[in-house]
């Protein structure tokens, strides 16, 4: 009897589990071009597009409102940092930051630690953006 019931219970549990959704893409940006995203995985049912604002300032636009309500779905956006140390020219580094600013808008900032500059994303190291949506 137990053997017969176990598979049914297991299937029911699977169907009831909330699904974590994820978007992952590699980013590359140079000059004053819009960042190019190579999508690696996306089961979010959300399309993400990119735009160029000014040196080191880029927009990530979601096709749905992800950040509208703090009591709704939980969204985490992360991006690989690009810090490196140049021992020849002296200590230096880079910083890559992503943060939400509006219902469906995130901003990416890339800097050389003194000012926002272009040509960091995907140039010295791989920079992957990952957006995880928790139910």
């Amino acid at each position: 009897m137990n053997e017969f019931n176990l598979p049914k219970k297991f299937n029911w549990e699977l169907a009831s589990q909330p699904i974590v959704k994820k978007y992952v893409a590699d980013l590359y940006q140079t000059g004053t071009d819009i960042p190019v995203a190579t999508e690696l995985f996306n089961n979010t049912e959300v399309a993400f597009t990119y735009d160029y604002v000014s040196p080191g300032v880029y927009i990530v636009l979601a096709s749905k409102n992800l950040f509208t309500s703090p009591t709704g779905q939980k969204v985490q956006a992360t991006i690989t940092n690009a810090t490196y140390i140049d021992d020849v020219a002296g200590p230096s580094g880079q910083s890559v930051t992503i943060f939400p600013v509006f219902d469906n808008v995130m901003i990416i900032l890339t800097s050389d630690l003194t000012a926002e500059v272009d040509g960091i994303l995907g140039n010295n190291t791989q920079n992957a953006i990952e957006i995880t949506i928790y139910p």
Partner: protein
Amino acid sequence: MEDTVLLNALVAKLGAEAGQKAYDKIMAIKGNRAKNI
């Protein structure tokens, strides 16, 4: 220090409300960075 070029660019691309919010957060991050270096 106000960066009207950045603000105008953000407003042009995102609209007035989202552009202003983006600008405020960017300037806050820039300000914190300047204090930490």
